[in-house]
């Protein structure tokens, strides 16, 4: 189905090492002329939640985009044995159509379940049903974020979630629901790597991966 999917990083379907589902080995990433990530190694397994921390510009988004295959690695390799779901700074929603249609379209291009019940369950996973039929352009920043995260419920249970500042724009109550969603995903055997602050999903005692930023 894919004509042209040049993913520069090797993303093997089966993990080469024992049972780490996500395996990053000696990864370096260049942005322009700057080496943003240098020799980073990281492993993650089913049920792991990991918080990616570090100052602005330390390469948190760059790392997530590299794992997602959206940026090439300058050196090193990444292998991930499970489907990758990425929620970036942008929500991936079209303003012109409703949240429900956005979610259904996303499920279809990914080949996930698109039954009415599956979409409804996903929408209610983050209490978005009340505004799911409005065009996304009239929604607030936080509401769009909730739709983008509600989308994750459509993905397979074992997938790796890459979340870039998932709490951005969310109020406190919504942040707590997000913690719940993330913990449930981990309990069901999924993995989460989130660029966020440390009290994210605190009850699940997430691991932390710190990017120090440029050392001068």
């Amino acid at each position, binding site marked *: *189905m894919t*004509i*042209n999917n040049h993913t520069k990083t090797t993303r093997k379907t089966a993990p080469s090492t024992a049972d780490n589902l996500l395996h990053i080995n000696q990864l370096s990433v260049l942005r322009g002329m700057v080496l943003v990530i240098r020799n980073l190694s990281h492993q993650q397994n089913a049920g792991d939640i990991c918080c990616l921390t570090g100052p602005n510009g330390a390469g948190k988004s760059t790392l997530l985009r590299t794992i997602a295959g959206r940026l090439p690695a300058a050196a090193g390799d990444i292998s991930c044995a499970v489907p*990758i779901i990425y929620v970036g700074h942008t929500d*991936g929603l*079209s303003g012109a*159509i409703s949240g429900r249609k956005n979610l259904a379209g*996303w499920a279809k*291009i990914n080949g996930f379940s698109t039954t009415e019940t599956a979409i409804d369950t996903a929408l209610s996973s983050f209490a978005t049903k009340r505004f799911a039929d409005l065009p996304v352009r009239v929604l607030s920043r936080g509401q769009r974020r909730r739709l983008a995260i509600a989308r994750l419920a459509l993905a397979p249970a074992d997938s790796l979630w890459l979340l870039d500042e998932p709490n951005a724009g969310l109020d406190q109550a919504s942040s707590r629901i997000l913690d719940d969603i993330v913990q449930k995903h981990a309990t069901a055997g999924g993995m989460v790597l989130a660029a966020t602050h440390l009290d994210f999903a605190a009850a699940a005692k997430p691991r932390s991966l710190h990017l120090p930023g440029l050392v001068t």
Partner: protein
Amino acid sequence: MKPFFAQIERDLLIAWQNRQDLGVMLVFFVIIIALFPLAIGANATVLDPLGVPVIWIAALLAILAGFDRLFAQDVRDGWLDQIALSQLGLGWYALAKAVSHWLTAGLPLLIMTPLMAMMLNIPLQQWPPLLVALLIGSMGLTLLGVIGAALAEGARRGTALMALLILPLAVPLLIFGTLASQSDRGIISPHLMLLGAVFALLLALAPLVAASALEIGETETGL
């Protein structure tokens, strides 16, 4: 094929929400055609042979004018990130974009064309070759536009660059298209076959070129 049609369905839903754009494009098409006789003057011997070329130039400009922001909204929304990770892939995505853009721009233009042909007093027996040539030509122009839009997206320079890149490449389509439209040897003329060959080449190349352009654009200028 399901993800491919899902992308077309999504684009058509969005196009329906922005349907005033379609009206603008059609009015643009009509205005260009109406301006030619005004500039040339009311001389039937000069105007008569100009009918078909005028329709072709108006169609070319109207189709390519709609392309500048083809991928921009998807990049801004982050939809392109989701596409790149999905089963669809950037190549099929570009092709789906071409199909939906043709359905929302090329097809309405084609439906308007008989009306314009009547306005320009093009003889009835010329209509079938004109419409068939314009059908293939508009699809070829759409594929060219997809290449241009993808390149412009990577370069972040927008419309001006796209016009410079794409208009020269549209020359073969324009030449074979106008010749095929004015053929007096029926619909299937040698010019139509050459037009079809150019279209087939574009159909094979455009998705690949567009996918590479979108991929490179991301690496060089993305977040």
